[in-house]
């Protein structure tokens, strides 16, 4: 489980909770629009070492079948993963 996008995105004034309690992990917006460059993983070169997964500040990388996979909805394009990868398997592309 991780915080995820919900269907209900707007709230009327009456619906806003009066106290400080609300559901954990309730997301209504993506962060993909922040990117000016986008990490692209070369699955051939990736050895699934988890370095990018460990160091991504946004936690958007998972290792699936020994390969890194990115959740582009929330990747901000910082490029940390690309720098940390020991196999140079992540290229930052000028595209969103």
């Amino acid at each position, binding site marked *: 489980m991780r915080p995820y996008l919900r269907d209900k995105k707007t*709230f009327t004034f009456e619906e806003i909770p009066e106290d400080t309690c609300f559901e954990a992990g309730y997301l209504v917006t993506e*962060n993909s629009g922040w990117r000016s460059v986008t990490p692209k993983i070369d699955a051939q070169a990736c050895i699934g070492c988890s370095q990018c997964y460990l160091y991504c500040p946004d936690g958007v990388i998972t290792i699936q079948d020994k390969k890194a996979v990115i959740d582009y909805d929330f990747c901000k394009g910082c490029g940390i993963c690309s720098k940390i990868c020991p196999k140079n398997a992540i290229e930052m592309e000028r595209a969103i």
Partner: protein
Amino acid sequence: MRADQLDKNEYFYGHKACAGCGGSLAVRAALKVLGERSIAVLPAGCMSAVGFNFPQLCFGNNAIISMFAGTASMLTGVEAGMRRRGYKDFHAVGLAGDGGTADIGIQALSGAIDRGDDILYICYDNEAYMNTGIQKSGLTPYGARTTTTPAGRNIRGNIRPKKNMFEIVAAHDIPYAATATVGYINDFIDKVEKASKIRGTKFIHVIAPCPTGWGIPVSDTIEVAREMADCGLWYLAEYENGKFTLDRDPGEFKSAEAHLRRQGRFKHLTDEDIDLIIKSRDEKWEKIRREWK
């Protein structure tokens, strides 16, 4: 702890921290170790500002914002309340900035350690009050330019050294204290795990570069954090059972000058300023190499 032993869930996700934010990595990694049965207390600061923007609520576990000064006292209350309700297997964890820890929150922290409350206090140190636009804190290093310590013709940035928070906390005879950096994330993860198994008050001071405030590219956060430890301007150490230990001695230091010069906040420093920083680094290491074997 190996990567595949970590909780696969994410507990800090979709947050609005700047791209490449070191603080957000520290929070994310700590919560992956502590898991869903942790109650996080975050004072005013970047991590609460980027994590709670109703209805965008980025913590997957229970989390609450405390008053700026009150991280540790709220942790005390959370822990006592949970215990009173019969919960056993949980972690009360504080995730506070350097200003919130070394300045305004230091009294509450000192009190909690004195009472021996069973809490884990993590200070993510980005070396200034970032959330309000980069003001000097007690943990801003010598020479750094902030909006309250500008670099001009007569005074070149911060004229005070970085407060020695780790040793101030250790001087309370706390059960466990450690320093860490997001640059060596496995070491940080291991320390959080170790702290989570110790009863009583625990404190971890983790360096977390802020690209916005430090004037570095967003892709360089980890590299700069590593370099800071490798050039001796940070150290990885622990305090346990009344004893200090140095966890990692880089041996020959990497260039501190190159490390400082690549950061916008140190651009104005003269060669003499840098010599002064290196001299105080060498004095510090002479002492810790001698005393913290």
